[in-house]
């Protein structure tokens, strides 16, 4: 049985969800709308860096969305269903992609919920209504005075926040000096307690990003061997000093404010006139999902452009760990055409998708090869540090090489033997046995994290 508007109303958790869904019913929000049989899916650009992938089954109203909403179904599912029921014509026929197959493969062979009556009543018993949702959007008031007041209040808040952060940064510098004077051996014997106190003070001072950085420091220290902890601690404290001093010198700097306070919203990046924008075909070269101590899960999707000129981009999203595992938006190795808007920085890496080209470019881009770079990887790393000395991790494209072992540690070694960089963890033996023609990796000056490689076996991902 196909979906109807009354069924959508029935499925909606509340009227607010329908109102929010109505706002998403714009073609510009959905660069890709596709169907195959009863399966209908699309990608919706939400507030995160990664688009949300939404799918539903028209035959039984089963659905899935990668957004972190706690409402089921979320506004993206409702919007997709609504658009499809109103006019299925814009939904192109296509082959089911892997993420849709994966979702449908996990489903039980039962209907998603009890089937509703096929009448066209649009007002449910709970008082939810699609008509009301549409009206709410139309009746949105526009008050220039209120808008001006809002802007003034925001500016006032920003000023107060800067003042508060400045106080926090002063305290942090004092704390750093205390740690050095008191002896880093004592710090290393109990990093959790020491970091927790200053992180809490920084949260109070609204220096949220710096607080998270300090909160994560103990676990980062634990990830390296005992003999390298002191080196990592000195490097990290040194970077903190650099960030604090640079921010104090220029409190309006967007990159530094992001490192100590909070990030800009996606919309503000898109509205920036001078933001770097790059339109290219991008390949997803890696994904890192980590649960942080503050209860957030960070989902980092690394992209690399194909064709001329090497450029990396990072789509970074956060969501509460309490929502459980979220499926990834992109699979490693996936390619897509899009214009990315980069967050302003001395070496811009973090980005959001500004515009996703519609259609399925995968067929056209399958044969495109990875970019070629002649700059030695460590030179480009040093060049990046020269511009932004506080950067801790820099993406690099490594030339041909192999994984090699020395005692119990593993290294990436270039084919000419000129570079050997230690890698984190132990690679699967079959991965270690492959000659890598090119490798995308992250280097932090101590540990190389392999993302993916091109090899005679095709593309290999290290995240699996």
């Amino acid at each position, binding site marked *: 049985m196909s979906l109807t508007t009354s069924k959508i109303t029935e499925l909606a958790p509340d009227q607010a969800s329908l109102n929010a869904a109505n706002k998403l019913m714009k073609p510009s929000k959905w660069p890709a709308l596709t169907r195959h049989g009863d399966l209908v899916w699309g990608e919706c650009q939400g507030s995160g860096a990664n688009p949300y992938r939404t799918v539903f089954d028209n035959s039984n109203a089963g659905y899935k969305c990668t957004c972190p909403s706690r409402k089921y179904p979320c506004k993206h599912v409702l919007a997709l269903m609504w658009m499809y029921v109103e006019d299925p014509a814009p939904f192109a026929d296509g082959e089911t992609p892997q993420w849709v197959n994966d979702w449908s493969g996990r489903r039980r062979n039962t209907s998603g919920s009890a089937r509703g009556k096929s009448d066209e009543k649009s007002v449910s018993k709970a008082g939810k209504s699609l008509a009301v949702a549409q009206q709410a959007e139309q009746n949105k008031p526009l008050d220039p005075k209120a808008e001006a007041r809002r802007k003034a209040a925001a500016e006032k808040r920003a000023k107060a926040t800067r003042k508060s952060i400045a106080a926090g940064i002063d305290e942090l510098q004092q704390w750093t000096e205390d740690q050095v004077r008191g002896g880093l051996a004592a710090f290393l014997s109990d990093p959790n307690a020491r970091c927790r106190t200053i992180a809490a003070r920084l949260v109070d001072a609204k220096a949220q990003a710096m607080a998270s950085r300090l909160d994560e420091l103990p676990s980062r220290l634990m990830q390296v061997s005992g003999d390298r902890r002191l080196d990592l601690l000195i490097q990290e404290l*040194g*970077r903190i000093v650099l960030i604090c001093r640079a921010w104090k010198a220029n409190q309006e700097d967007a990159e530094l404010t992001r490192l100590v306070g909070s990030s800009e919203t996606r919309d503000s990046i898109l509205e920036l006139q001078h933001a770097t924008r790059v339109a290219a075909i991008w390949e997803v070269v890696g994904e890192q999902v980590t649960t942080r101590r503050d209860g957030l899960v960070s989902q980092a999707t690394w992209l690399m452009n194909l064709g001329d000129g090497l450029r990396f981009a990072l789509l970074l999203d956060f969501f509460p760990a309490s929502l459980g595992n979220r499926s990834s938006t992109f699979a490693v190795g996936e390619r897509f055409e899009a214009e990315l808007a980069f967050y302003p920085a001395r070496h811009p890496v973090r980005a959001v998708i500004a515009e996703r080209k519609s259609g399925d470019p995968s067929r056209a881009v399958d044969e495109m090869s990875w970019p070629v770079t002649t700059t030695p990887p460590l030179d480009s790393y040093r060049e990046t*540090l020269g511009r932004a000395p506080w950067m801790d991790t820099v993406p690099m494209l490594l030339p041909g090489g192999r994984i090699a072992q020395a005692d119990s540690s593993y290294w990436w070694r270039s084919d000419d033997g000129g570079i050997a960089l230690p890698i984190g963890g132990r690679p699967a033996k079959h991965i270690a046995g492959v000659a890598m023609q090119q490798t995308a990796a992250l280097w932090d000056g101590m540990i190389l994290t392999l993302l993916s490689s091109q090899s005679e076996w095709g593309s290999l991902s290290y995240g699996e």
Partner: protein
Amino acid sequence: MASDLLQTLNALKGCWMIGGSAVGKTPASWRAAVQDDPNPELAILALAGQAMQFALQATPGGELKVTPTLPALSLPTPPPQARQHFRHLIRIIKITESQTADVMHLLAARGYVVHPADYMPKSFHLLPDVYGSWASWQNAEQESDKTGEHDQINADNWDAWMPAERRAALSVLRRTQPEAARQLIADKAPTVPAAERLRIIETIGEALCEEDQSLLEGFSKDRSAKVRRLVEQYLARIGAAEDEAAEVAEFADFFSVAKKRLRGGFKITANRLKTTAQRKRRGELAAKLSLQSFVQGLGLPDETELISGWEHVDEEASDSLVRMVAATGNEQAAATMATRITSLDGISAEGFQQLFDRLGKDSRGMLLPRVLENDDASLSAAVVCAQGLWGEITLEQLKPLQALKQLKKLAGQDTTKNTVGQQTLRRGLFSLGLLADQAAATQLLAMFTETNLFASDPMLGLLKLNACLPPGEPQ
């Protein structure tokens, strides 16, 4: 220069480790750079951190050893769509290891091997021979390209072969130069570990003949019980078993033999047993004795008379006979038995498997239509019979099957509360995925989705893989 920097950094680290100011430990150039800084200690800390990140690079503690290169296999990897379906089977549906081995046989039959990033087998003994070089690679401790240097195995180059490839090379030698193979096994098998020795002696099982008797007798007192048992079975197959007469007589007493009046021949019936102890003893003797001794004990002229006159009245006894024939019967006895057993009715899957493992590809191919015809909806007997014949059955062959009708019926029902039905449907669809040719798989997919299953139903996973596997160059 680097050593100066390292020395400075070590001095700074030592100072900061115990606590205190490190400004005095820095070179003059560093002190000059921070002399106007309101907090020179922090400035030195930032400089030291940058120096570590920028100028120093870790070096390996010892010699770097590269893992041997994963060898390329002689077949290509499947097309991208098929790889996606294969990964789905492995990671999402999570098929078992033996099912994975079956799927890999299907891939090999179509001319493909798995991509190492999709699946790297832990064990290779159930897999097609095309993976032999991966097995050797996995076992290799050191980089070794010796194996590929030799066309034929012999006593001089024996040690240069890795176990899996050595076994494959021995099989070839056994087929082409049986006498040389016998000599090589006699010389070299005692020098390898028991598990490998067993696999080497298994190569004799192919085209076993009387000339192998002395070689087999050489292993009859092997220290490995598994090797001894295998050797006993092989000797029995060539009529050289040495069973104790008392045990043979005791076993024969469990059966009655009567002459058929009209068409000649004999009728062999298992006697009704009264106690569990009797059943247990009959089972023990069946597993121990050879088919030839059993025939002699019953006073029958040959094995064919026993098999063709066997009355299927006691399932346990029939299963014992099937296993006995599979283990100790000669080629003709195994072939005769297989013609009588074309379904799992009362026979254990293990016994059925053992028997059909004795048959060549051609014999199994001839029996397959009958097995398919008599099989139940899970098609498990057909899967056993079709080993090595994966992905060759046409829709015309499948259409009239009772099993297919039952599967369609199950697919049309709501099986959410019928666990047995759901399992049967899952197994049956998987079996169809192994058996059907590409065109049949495509049509079966359409057929089952029209019935009631979602196109995305995980039970259809193997049929989907099959449907997008065009025949390449088979192994």
